[in-house]
């Protein structure tokens, strides 16, 4: 890994997005002190992770990417083990029940971990991570193998944890989940491309906001060149058809009225003109593509 430079404010959900093998898990291990960086400095909760005191470690919650609990222990026993590992008191009944209700495993609490499905094991792993009310939570792909409804529920719970003052560092391969985050770090090929808000990602990917303009008659080359030359149009992102074009502008809010006026002045009949919100998948693909092409995408 290289060029990994970022800060995470307390009380936010920090999403770490990137393709498989880009170094997300390594980053988590560096932050939790499992790995020591070969160069550079890592500080979490004011301490170097490899020298965390037991008290600081007790404030951490860590859910590895793989299921690493005990298959021969029941769901409840695995919860108990994790809680004891973090020195939690023995008054555990109610907190465990709440967590198991949340991950929908209450009725399976007596089953052995090997007897439940892969998705249930991920939910159990999440529940065990949260048993001791950690302040700083590292979740390595917590929503993998989880159905979309439960995944949505998980993110809502993460937001709840954040609202209660927890800081969450979450890696995911689901680019769409970046929308749930307060800040998103985009990784590709061992490099952090940027750290941005979800809204800012699109602007960073395309160089501004996007407006789709559809005319009632074909837009010829001369007309497209006129559009490109307008001061508030940064570029033509792509031509959607012979009558439609996608433009990159600084601010869609101010550019749309100006474009309407320009079309009226040029006798170009307009069928529709509206701001286009690119999917995060498109944004991510665009960013990774730019990184591969060597175009400058800097981390914030």
């Amino acid at each position: 890994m290289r060029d990994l430079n970022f800060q995470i404010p307390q009380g936010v959900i920090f999403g770490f997005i990137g393709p498989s093998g880009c170094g997300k898990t390594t980053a988590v291990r560096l932050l939790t002190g499992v790995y020591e960086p070969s160069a550079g400095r890592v500080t979490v909760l004011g301490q170097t992770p490899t020298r965390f005191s037991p008290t600081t470690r007790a404030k951490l919650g860590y859910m590895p990417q793989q299921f690493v609990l005990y298959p021969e222990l029941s769901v409840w026993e695995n919860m108990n083990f994790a809680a004891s590992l973090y020195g939690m008191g023995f008054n555990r009944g109610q907190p465990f029940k709440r967590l198991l209700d949340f991950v929908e495993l209450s009725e399976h609490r007596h089953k052995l971990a090997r007897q439940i499905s892969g998705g249930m094991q991920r939910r159990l792993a999440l529940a065990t991570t949260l048993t001791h009310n950690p302040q700083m939570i590292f979740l390595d792909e917590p929503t993998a193998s989880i159905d979309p409804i439960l995944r949505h529920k998980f993110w809502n719970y993460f937001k709840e944890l954040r609202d209660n003052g927890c800081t969450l560092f979450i890696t995911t391969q689901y680019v769409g989940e970046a929308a749930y985050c307060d800040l998103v770090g985009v990784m590709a090929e061992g490099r952090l491309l940027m750290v941005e808000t979800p809204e800012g990602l699109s602007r960073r990917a395309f160089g501004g906001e996007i407006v789709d303009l559809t005319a009632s008659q074909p837009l010829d080359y001369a007309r497209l060149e006129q559009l490109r030359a307008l001061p508030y149009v940064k570029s033509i992102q792509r031509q959607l058809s012979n009558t439609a074009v996608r433009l990159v502008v600084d601010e869609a809010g101010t550019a749309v009225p100006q474009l309407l006026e320009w079309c009226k002045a040029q006798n170009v009949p307009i069928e529709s003109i509206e701001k286009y919100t690119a999917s995060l998948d498109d944004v991510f693909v665009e960013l990774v593509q730019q990184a591969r092409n060597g175009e400058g995408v800097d981390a914030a």
Partner: protein
Amino acid sequence: MLRNILIAPVRVSAFLGKEIYEILREPRLVLTLILGPFLILLLFGIGFRNQSRQYRTLFVAPEGDSLSQQIQAFGASLDSQILFVGVTPDEVAAKEQLRRNEVDLVIVIPTQALESIRNNQQAVFTLYHNELDPLQVGYIQYLGGVYAEEINRHMLQRVTAYGQSEAVAHQDDLGAARTNATALRVALEQGDSAAARQHQQELESNVSGLELGVGAGMTILSGLDQTSTEGQSTDPEAILAQLSDVRQNTNALGQIEDNRSDYTVEAQTAAKIESDLTTLDTLLGDFKRIEPGVLVSPFRSETYTVASVQPRVIDFYAPGVLALLLQHLAITFGALSIVRERQLGTLELFRVSPVSATEMLIGKYLSYLLFGVILAGILTVMLHWMLGVPVLGGWLNYGAVILGLLFTSLGIGFVISLISRTDSQAVQYAMIVLLASVFFSGFITTLRSLWEPVRVISWLLPVTYGIQLFQSVMLRGSLPEPALLGSLVLIGLVLFVWAWLLLHRLMARR
């Protein structure tokens, strides 16, 4: 800091509970661990016959050989070891039968045995066997020696019996000698020199006859077994000594002169001869009453123990089985414990969590110690109350040995676990320790039979201490020897520190 110390037992309890739950998830394993050794010991106790092996023995001897006719009789005295199958003159056929395992032993009787002896050479019995086991080979060699001794003893008995019969045959000479000695004394007291000389000549003749008959037999007997008959009043040497005195005194009388006024000195000598002859008569009487077997083998042994109990075979092996089982159990559980954590990936969780290598190791030690103690308790109940194996030395001492053995064995297991990369590798290491334990711990053979430098291996194995301590506490009723128990615990402490260092390095952040 203080809070961290207070919370440490909670973190230790994580491993304590986890390990116990995991073991209990395998009831068949637990049942096997309990019932397996119990049943093995029970079957061993039922099946073991504490008697030496009987060898089917075929003798090879020339037809009509005088010695071969007595072979069966000699062999009968070793019937617990030698089962007489028959006598054949064909040595080649006998060896072929041996190769086909139709017989276990072939003994070739020496041809011309008596000639060899007359030529001042020992006659050799040759034993052939078809055994591979060095212990059996050693035993057959020993048996050959015993067999030859038995035949030698039979020979000596025959010579002794002959000597006795010869001595008794000259009892008449002895009676005549005593009569003439009395008559000689009386004639000398009365001053009748002519009668005295006549009786002196007759006495001389009687003594010569005794020397020839009794003396020759006694000399052979005396030479045959000087050591064993030394100091006995009825031994051939005592008889010979008495006969020698008679001869000396008879010679001392010399020529009895005529017309002397006083024959007191000669009369006293005659009285001494008379007394010696009476003693000789008594000795010969005693001698002939003693069985030739007793004369040839005057000593036999009887064995008694000063130990608290005379253990049965099952009692003797129970401490060894218990020690071996507890060691193997602890090593195997320990060996699989941490290597499985590594394979599951849980070590990564531990690295992030506040748990330390010390807490983890203590938790695992406690869990397996607890399990081992429970298992040992159940086994003890079965051994003591169902098989009747004694525990004479008190339960506290017994418990101390169990704890020491488990603690040290777990240390070996954890070190194995920490140097192994896979569970199959760990199991292999555990099996090697088991194999070493069977051969070097004194479980099969005593430690004394091992070359001293090799015994170092023995004393590195917890089971060696376990067997000695269990036998001492269970069968002798003694306190555990402090040096042994202390050494065992010391090895355990060294292993604990070693395991801790390895685990600490493994848990360290990379």
